[in-house]
């Protein structure tokens, strides 16, 4: 069994969105390599609470990589050094004894810090509300097999739909661009027959909301797909661009 570790944590502490934040150094001793990263922070927080200090605030919910709540920028990378996982799925065995671990919140104008490491990702909700849905009118329930969808298309749509909206793409992007998130949400519906009636209205509305939220532009660095815990491909971005330009330059549909 591997031995416990001692780590130095440099954690971003910020009282609220109006105040300036700063790094505070904490010592995390006797950290089990089998702990998750969030469990390690839980232990640090218990210590802080016992001492009467304000515990470090961070978002978390399901702790099994599904909810998209956890959002830590660890040593320069969203969700830490491993690929295809969220922060809650990151284990302390990915670090070495005496490592210094720098923990920052997602940094983007569109994601204001609420407190410490927790950021407001309401911008994503507003983009979704702008068009990330299909309108279903009332009536009888159609048979599930009534609309035939090729397997490859269904797979592609499901891959896009695995986005949990954690914001790691924005965090990883040097421009704080939300293109991977928005394109995944556009693609999951644009690929399927059910998404067709609103396809061109949707892409225009969602891109307009994305721009209004103050996200940056896409430089096609590919950092988003490299850091995405669900490994969503930038093929989605190309698809969204194609649909957007078709909508704007050819279809001329109302946004």
């Amino acid at each position, binding site marked *: 069994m591997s031995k416990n570790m001692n780590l130095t944590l440099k954690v971003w502490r910020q009282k609220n969105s109006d105040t300036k934040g700063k790094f505070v150094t904490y010592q995390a001793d006797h950290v089990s390599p089998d702990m998750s990263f969030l469990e390690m922070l839980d232990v640090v927080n218990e210590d802080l609470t016992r001492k009467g200090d304000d515990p470090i605030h961070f978002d978390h919910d399901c702790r099994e990589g599904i909810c998209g709540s956890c959002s830590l920028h660890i040593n*320069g990378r969203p969700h830490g050094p491993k690929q295809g996982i969220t922060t809650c799925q990151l284990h302390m065995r990915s670090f070495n004894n005496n490592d210094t671990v720098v923990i920052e919140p997602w940094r983007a104008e569109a994601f204001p810090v609420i407190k410490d490491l927790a950021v407001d990702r309401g911008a994503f909700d507003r983009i979704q509300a702008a068009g990330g849905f299909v309108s279903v009118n009332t009536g009888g329930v159609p048979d599930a097999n009534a609309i035939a969808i090729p397997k490859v298309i269904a797979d592609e749509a499901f891959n896009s739909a695995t986005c949990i909206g954690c914001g790691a793409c924005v965090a990883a992007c*040097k421009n704080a661009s939300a293109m991977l998130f928005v394109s995944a949400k556009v693609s999951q519906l644009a690929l399927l027959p059910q998404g067709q009636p609103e396809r061109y209205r949707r892409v225009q509305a969602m891109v307009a909301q994305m721009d209004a939220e103050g*996200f*940056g*532009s896409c430089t*096609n660095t590919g950092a988003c797909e490299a850091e995405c815990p669900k490994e969503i491909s930038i093929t989605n971005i*190309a698809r969204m661009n194609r649909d957007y330009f078709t909508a*704007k330059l050819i279809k001329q549909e109302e946004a």
Partner: protein
Amino acid sequence: MSNLAKTFSSSLGRKLVMALTGLFLCTFLIVHLVGNLQLFKDDAGQAFNAYAYFMTHFTPIKVVSYLLYASIIVHAIYALIISAGNKKARPIAYAVQAGSQNSPWTSRNMGILGTILLVFIVVHMGDFWWKYHNDELPYAKYEISLDNPNDINVSELPYDADRLVHSEVTDVQAGKRTVISKDLYKIVNNSFQTWWYVLLYVIAMAALSFHLIHGFRSAFQTIGWNNSRFLPLVRFIGVWVFGVLIPLAFAAMPLYFFFK
């Protein structure tokens, strides 16, 4: 029209402008390279000077050249606008950001590479384009034997405001063709005798290589043309043609004159 203006001021529209102007500049590089291959011809610059005359006096090419100047300016201005927006999108920078672990170096440094290229374009056009159009350059007189086109007798003529930029007279009885043209070749040859000037060109071509290794492929991604069947071809052309072949061939020109 206002809808179109709105489209091109959206984040995606701006990137489309970057992609389209960028690809247009890429096609120009091919033409520029093929034309400049005349420099390697061992004819005291006769073919190159004839080509320079053709490029500056043939109307369709003149039209395209204005489109080209506009593309360079638009590409640079949009780059500035987009970069300013990107900067605003992350007002507080990360203390640690491990970009090298998730993205290629070229993709993160397009601005720096582009700035080097813009400086290069200004110097390059100032030294050749501007001088050819505005300076009182000497003329070269080529007397070419009709029997043997490789038998060229070259002599220098001083600048004369009344002289045509390019003229050709064929004298069958004397068995020779006389070509008189503004001598851009000489300017090129003289410029590339200075080591630091050659170095500037080689550095600029390295920047061009890195700029296009990312830029060419990136333009297709922005336009949305990333069909899985064509993507390998786009990548291949981007890296090997625009990233390696073209910059190497361009860099070979100053080196050729320096070591000739």
